[in-house]
């Protein structure tokens, strides 16, 4: 079996699956259950200055799919609502009982040097393996000048990271907010401040849905609501992109990344790792199904690694990064055309109406008595993938690469580009 263990900026863990800083890592009881279930590590829910935060009721809401599966999850909880002393005591006890697991402590303090200088020395004696700076929480805390309010200002990120590096010997991981235009800026700032790693993404500002009778969004507190932080399956594509942006940025390339955002199974984890993550953090999936999911995640990941001949995580880590590039470097001469496997086609007509109404009129509907046959009009197909996406039968529509006989040519070399960097005769 493949070796799932990792060494993430000096933090060792028997597998790359960590629980993210959130309700599942709120206290010893939960964390012990997580370790019993097999999680490789946890990021203990965010510690702050006393007195601890006070939470409201209710706190969560969700976007459901057709079968009430949770697509996206939203919360308005604040950082820990327990005292610093209790948290530190529990962290110490749990780490002592589970020495092989990664114990990272999430922290959020005001943008002043004193609190960091005072509290960081209290964390180190717990035996924790590292700290994570919560610069991402998008709800509640930013109104008090913390969380995403810091994460949205690269100069503050650099400043606080520098203090942390000054007052603790533990690895410092900076958790980034996605509520920003270009995630590379805060990542570069963290690196400049001396961060050992970044973790991303924190949650995205969100309102999931409304009670249309009461005319108020969820979660409802009294008669009102507020925006929360969005996570779960729905945010995975956003998180993957941000991880890739940092992984392939010349400035931050090589900076360890702990990937977070909609990871619910081994395949999600493998994707984050292939795009540059060295560990992955999970929250929503565990909140919906319990800690036991790690069992299938570990089993699936190691079996897939075995099937591919990857002996350890490093063997496929960042493997998809070189294949993630700017649009302008894509091959303009590459061409795929849809193909419908008539033996698999069930005749639902979705490919036809999708292409006919919204794309390139490249799926013909042939009426044969009471039957219908759908066929690709090769000359009209631009290879957009829409039919393949809307087809309900897996493997029925495939996108077939065409032999164009033309060499690789990107937009910077393309004669149709008025700003082409290469003259036509050079291509």
């Amino acid at each position, binding site marked *: 079996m493949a070796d799932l263990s990792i060494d993430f900026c000096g933090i060792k863990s028997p597998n790359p699956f960590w629980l993210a800083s959130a309700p599942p890592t709120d206290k010893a009881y939960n964390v012990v259950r997580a370790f019993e279930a097999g999680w490789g590590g946890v990021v203990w829910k965010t510690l702050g200055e006393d007195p601890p935060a006070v939470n409201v009721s209710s706190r969560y809401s969700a976007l459901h799919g057709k*079968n*009430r599966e949770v697509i996206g999850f939203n919360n308005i909880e604040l950082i820990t609502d327990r005292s610093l002393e209790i948290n530190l005591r529990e962290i110490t006890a749990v780490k002592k009982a589970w020495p092989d697991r990664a114990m990272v402590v999430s922290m959020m303090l005001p943008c002043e040097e004193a609190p960091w200088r005072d509290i960081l020395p209290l964390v180190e004696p717990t035996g924790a393996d590292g700290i994570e700076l919560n610069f991402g929480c998008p709800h509640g805390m930013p109104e008090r000048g913390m969380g995403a309010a810091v994460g949205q200002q690269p100069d503050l990120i650099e400043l606080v990271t520098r203090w942390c590096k000054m007052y603790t010997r533990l690895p410092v991981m900076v958790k980034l907010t996605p509520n920003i235009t270009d995630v590379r800026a805060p990542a570069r700032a963290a690196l400049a401040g001396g961060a050992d790693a970044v973790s991303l993404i924190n949650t995205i500002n969100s309102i999931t849905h409304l009670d249309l009778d009461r005319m108020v969004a969820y979660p409802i507190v009294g008669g009102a609501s507020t925006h929360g932080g969005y996570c779960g399956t729905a945010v995975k594509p956003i998180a993957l992109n941000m991880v890739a942006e940092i992984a392939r940025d010349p400035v931050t390339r090589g900076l360890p990344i702990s990937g977070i955002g909609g990871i619910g199974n081994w395949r999600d984890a493998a994707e984050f790792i292939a795009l540059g993550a060295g560990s992955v953090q999970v929250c929503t999936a565990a909140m919906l199904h319990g800690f036991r999911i790690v069992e299938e995640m570990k089993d699936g990941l190691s079996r897939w690694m075995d099937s591919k001949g990857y002996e350890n995580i490093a063997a496929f880590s960042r493997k998809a990064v070189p294949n993630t590039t700017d649009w302008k470097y894509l091959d303009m001469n590459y061409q795929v055309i849809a193909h419908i496997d008539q033996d698999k086609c069930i005749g*639902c*007509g979705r490919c036809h109406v999708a292409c006919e109404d919204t794309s390139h009129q490249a799926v013909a509907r042939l009426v044969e008595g*009471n039957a219908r046959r759908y066929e690709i009009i090769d000359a009209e197909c631009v290879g957009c993938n829409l039919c393949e996406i809307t087809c*309900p039968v897996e493997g029925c529509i495939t996108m077939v690469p065409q032999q164009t006989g033309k060499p690789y040519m990107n937009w910077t070399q393309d004669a149709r580009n008025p700003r082409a960097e290469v003259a036509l005769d050079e291509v």
Partner: protein
Amino acid sequence: MIESLQHLPPATATHAALADRFTDLAPSLTARQAAIESARCLYCYDAPCTRACPTGIDVASFIRNIHDQNVTGAAIGILKQNIFGGACSRVCPTEILCEDACVRNNVLEAQPVKIGLLQRHAIDNAHFDTHPFQRAPATGKTVAVVGAGPAGLACAHRLAMLGHDVVVFEAREKSGGLNEYGIAKYKLPGDFAQREVDFLLSIGGIEVRHGHILGVNLQLQDLHTRYDAVFLGIGLGASRRLGLTGEDAPGLSAAVDYISTLRQAQDLAALPVPRRAIVIGAGNTAIDMAVQLKRLGADEVTLVYRRGVEAMSATGHEIEIAKQNFVHMRTWAAPLEVLLDAAGRVRGMRFEETRMEAGRLAGTGAIVEIAADAVFKAIGQTMGKSGDGGSLDDPLARELERDAGSDKIHVDSFFRTALPGVYAGGDCVAPGQDLTVQAVQHGKMAALAIHGDIQSISSTSFAAGA
């Protein structure tokens, strides 16, 4: 109606106990089940289920509405095409129509979306403050409809929507036709048929006159003269005869007569119930009959058919119901003789075994006797001949052109008979199958034809149907 069975003992169970056996055969979906099932619909384009529905219900659309928690919108989408959408959701053989066509019925899944149950969910849970369809401005025309069954009432409802007034003439005490009198009680239980008729009539502009029998106290000639158009939705009035001696003996009756009596019975315990019974036939009526006898307490019910199971017109679903109710099936046996006891009452039947020989059904000479206190014929119905109380005792109706090779009224593709101004639909005409949903479509299409024809008469000088 079943005088020939009066010598049989009444049911042994109480009315309440029997009534429990005639509640809904198939349970309805819960809201949660409907949510899950509706999520399975792929919202096909040019959907095969809609093409398979005789009334052309936009199935994908109503299912999407159910899923989006717009149940009333879903119901209106159904009723727009089929005003008997409630009855049809219960009696339609969906396994040979929409659900057979469902793309999820492909080899890999073999599990169609439960369209029938979803349709029922929509109709049963819709909420209407008023009738959901509005009448067009009055045209001043009045159309006569003969027969208040699915065809006649569907026609009347559509005509009323189009702004015409309608007078419906019905022979029996209640409206609804086969929905009221002919469907197995456990498929349309309670007063469902009457509530559906009431809903349909609430559009206004439709007057139903009961006790009017074509050829007896109602003349087509009169209607033709007095109304702007006439629609005949008279069904099939006469049960086919076996053509055997003893056919009129006590103990032998038509399945449709017994079912009608059963459906109208105030006291199920008072019904005559044979201990052993034979049902002859292979259609859904034969199954309905056999299963209902079992539920009334008959010990042995044998369904006898002269061909094999594969040739039965009853659907696989119906045959399954018969099996679940412990109905015996005796195939490859043709009726030979009704056996009578000393008092001249049915004591059983003699059959000759059959087989296929060179593609034709032939007797083998082997004889089978089955003992029974009662025999029920479910071998189909016909228009009937003049003088036997059938549908066409009326002199003008009798003259209507019939289809070659059958006695059904000949109509064109717009449900016009050979007589201009007279239209017909439902079981008394040939197109399609003898299904409620087919009758509804006939009535609806005939109404559209009538509307076009009588409007053009008033706006131009062209004769209708010319």
